[in-house]
């Protein structure tokens, strides 16, 4: 098979295949229109979703404007280029990783949907690449790149190269995202591959950590610290395009040409790789048929194991058992959990190992795992109807939500405690252990409470096919649910945080900080129960609406 596709993919000269492919500009316009109408349809379904989308667009634009202003202000700074090159690299990384997690509304760009059309890969790639440039993300990147050029360009030649560099870097970013996404679809179309995709969570976890360390370095020793890193990054696409602008400003035309060539080569390479994946996707049987042929790996799924028998009876135990099974068996749920578990461990422990950490970072574990309470019903997909059919009262809804929270606690409590103890041990700060544990518990409680509530109020679909975690048009809703929820959770924790601070700064308060452990535990439990109580009637009253919301995609 690789021999067949490895043979030079015949680059179809325009007109070489009469009638097979629509003329390129026509195809580009069609795909762009298709993307816009899919986006519009996604938004038309509810005004809440529209509001959420507009809000997230406004926030992004605001951020873009600030970024632009900051970059312009940087103009003339001695180390400006170092920062700019790093920024472009981070954006490039973001583009590479984002499609794995939040490829909002890019249904046109899912080539598997276009398999049936008589299209050649190359014209299609061109059309999809242009369509990818439509959206908030590309706009943000465009503004960032423009700002970067402004901050390093000096002289007419540099400005001219700058315009070219912006276009090139933007295309590299978009092509990177598409190439990764296409490769990922192929990975995800087998059950094995889907389970492997769990690793992408670790990529994010490590990436966050690297950025974290980088920022800490900067904070201690200024922008000059970046120069050695930047010396390397200015040769890496897409940052090398912006690096070229700086080289021109300094009069190093040869270096600039080489840097531009590196980015251009990367673009060519990415587009080729993308076209390859697409050809293979369009010619090989799709995942659903492969799956049926796949030998069943799990031969015996026995009766409830010994562990399951320890669960309580009735609805509580039944729901807990199902939730826990899904953590292990459902690739999307599993990926989310592995990501949370990894970040929750890496952040506090790496920081502690670096000697820069604080025991309080251990709260990260509780916070990351608490996120799993969000969008509970979205995790069910449209199978939520089976739950909806058995919820006929607020009491049922309460039991359902409580059981899900309990399943989560079964993993989270021991895990967060272990991470906290480990971090404390690494830092040797045993006196702080009780208060950090107390804070963790309070935070966990607040996350469970807000998670239960937003699950009922802002449910959204998690498409099971492909690599997406949000259905088209629901991305804004998802962000608002999760971030709104996390901010509220932080606010809910405020009393415990306030007491912690107060005990730490007041004279002789240290003697009483152990009290924060029981206080945090009681507070967390109380807030959770309150959250469940408030979420239950909403869930019971909104069953059809929740089902509709989680059945998209």
């Amino acid at each position, binding site marked *: 098979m690789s021999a067949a596709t490895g043979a030079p993919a015949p680059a179809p000269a325009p007109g070489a295949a009469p009638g097979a492919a629509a003329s390129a500009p026509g195809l580009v316009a069609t795909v762009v229109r298709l993307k816009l109408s899919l986006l519009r349809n996604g938004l038309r379904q509810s005004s809440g979703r529209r509001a959420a989308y507009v809000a997230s667009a406004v926030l992004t634009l605001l951020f873009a404007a600030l970024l632009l202003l900051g970059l312009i202000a940087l103009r003339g700074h001695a180390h400006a280029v170092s920062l700019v090159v790093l920024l472009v690299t981070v954006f490039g990384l973001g583009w590479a990783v984002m499609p794995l997690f939040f490829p909002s509304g890019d249904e046109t760009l899912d080539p598997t949907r276009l398999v049936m059309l008589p299209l050649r890969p190359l014209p299609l790639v061109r059309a999809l690449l242009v369509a990818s440039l439509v959206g908030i993300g590309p706009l943000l990147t465009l503004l960032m790149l423009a700002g970067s050029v402004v901050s390093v360009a000096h002289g007419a030649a540099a400005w001219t190269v700058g315009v070219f560099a912006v276009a090139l870097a933007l295309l590299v970013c978009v092509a990177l995202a598409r190439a990764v996404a296409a490769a990922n679809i192929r990975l995800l179309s087998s059950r094995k591959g889907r389970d492997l995709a769990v690793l992408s969570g670790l990529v994010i976890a490590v990436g966050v950590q690297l950025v974290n360390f980088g920022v800490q370095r900067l904070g201690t020793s200024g922008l000059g610290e970046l120069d050695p890193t930047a010396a390397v990054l200015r040769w890496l696409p897409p940052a090398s395009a912006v690096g070229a602008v700086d080289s021109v400003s300094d009069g190093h035309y040869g270096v600039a040409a080489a840097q531009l060539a590196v980015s251009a080569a990367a673009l060519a390479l990415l587009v080729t790789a993308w076209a390859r994946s697409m050809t293979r996707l369009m010619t090989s049987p799709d995942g659903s048929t492969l799956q049926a042929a796949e030998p069943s790996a799990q031969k015996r799924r026995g009766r409830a194991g010994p562990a399951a028998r320890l669960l309580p009876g009735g609805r509580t135990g039944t729901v807990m058992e199902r939730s826990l*099974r*899904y953590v292990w068996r459902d690739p999307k749920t599993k990926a989310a959990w592995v990501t949370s578990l990894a970040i929750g461990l890496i952040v506090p422990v790496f920081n502690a190992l670096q000697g820069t950490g604080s025991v309080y970072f251990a709260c990260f574990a509780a916070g990351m795992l608490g996120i799993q309470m969000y969008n509970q019903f979205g995790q069910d997909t*449209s199978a939520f109807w089976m739950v*909806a*059919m*058995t919820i006929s*009262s607020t009491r049922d809804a309460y039991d359902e939500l409580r059981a899900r929270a309990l399943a989560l606690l079964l993993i989270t409590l021991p895990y967060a405690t272990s991470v906290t103890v480990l971090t404390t041990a690494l830092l040797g700060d045993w006196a702080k252990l009780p208060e950090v544990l107390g804070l963790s518990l309070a935070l966990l409680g607040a996350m469970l409470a807000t998670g239960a509530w937003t699950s009922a109020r802002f449910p959204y679909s998690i498409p099971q096919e492909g690599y997406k975690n949000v259905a088209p048009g629901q991305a804004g809703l998802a962000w608002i649910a999760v971030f709104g929820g996390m901010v509220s959770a932080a606010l809910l924790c405020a009393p415990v945080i306030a007491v912690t601070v107060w005990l730490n700064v007041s004279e002789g308060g240290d003697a009483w900080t152990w009290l924060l452990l029981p206080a945090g535990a009681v507070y967390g439990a109380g807030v959770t129960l309150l959250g469940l109580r408030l979420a239950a009637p909403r869930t019971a009253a909104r*069953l059809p609406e929740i089902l509709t919301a989680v059945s998209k995609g």
Partner: protein
Amino acid sequence: MTSVRVRNLWKRFGQQVAVAGIDLDLPSGKFIGLVGPNGAGKTTTLSMVTGLLRPDQGSVEVVGHDVWRDPVEVKARIGVLPEGLRLFERLSGRELLSYSGRLRGLPGAEVDKRATQLLDVLDLAGAQHKLVVDYSTGMRKKIGLAAALLHNPEVLFLDEPFEGVDPVSAQIIRGVLERYTASGATVVFSSHVMELVESLCDWVAVMAAGRIRAQGTLEEVRGAAPSLQRAFLELVGAQGRDTGSDLDWLGGAGR
């Protein structure tokens, strides 16, 4: 006695009126077919009747209780097999039955006993430990039917239960449903296949473009027409539409 009573039920999706003010009185203890072409509004109607979709207007009573005001009474008495919605597919067939039975509050031992019998009758015993995600369409319909029957409901709603099902599975499903109605329970199922409805049902409701065009016993609806298919075409005024003249290029030597 009526098992399902629907009054002035409406549902719009944007501009599109999916269900346009229908009235239905479905007798109990009968094998009832809701028949109509694709897009007639069958799925939308059944979703609203079973409480999975909120109507814009109108009332639904099942076994004498309002579906929206009295869900406690209704949900325990009905079984549902929707179309186009997933099951919990990462559970094995047996686990799915066990989950759904316990969720409905049946005692564990009873659930296990009934699940074993249902799996045997539906010829799923061999696949009971396979994940539902690996099931074929026919197996999915059968496991969905088992889950809907597990709590022995009074009224069973099935949306296109035979769609995409192989003949052997279809025969098995048919046998189970016939045995179930013989015990006095009501089955309401939707289909766009007239022959199927004609051979299975003793009572039919004909739906087209969001409205009920006729309802009654099979004989009443069929009237003088030789088959339900013909009666339906007469009802929607589509009989005798000649497709020959428009597609004269299709086939033949014109290639």
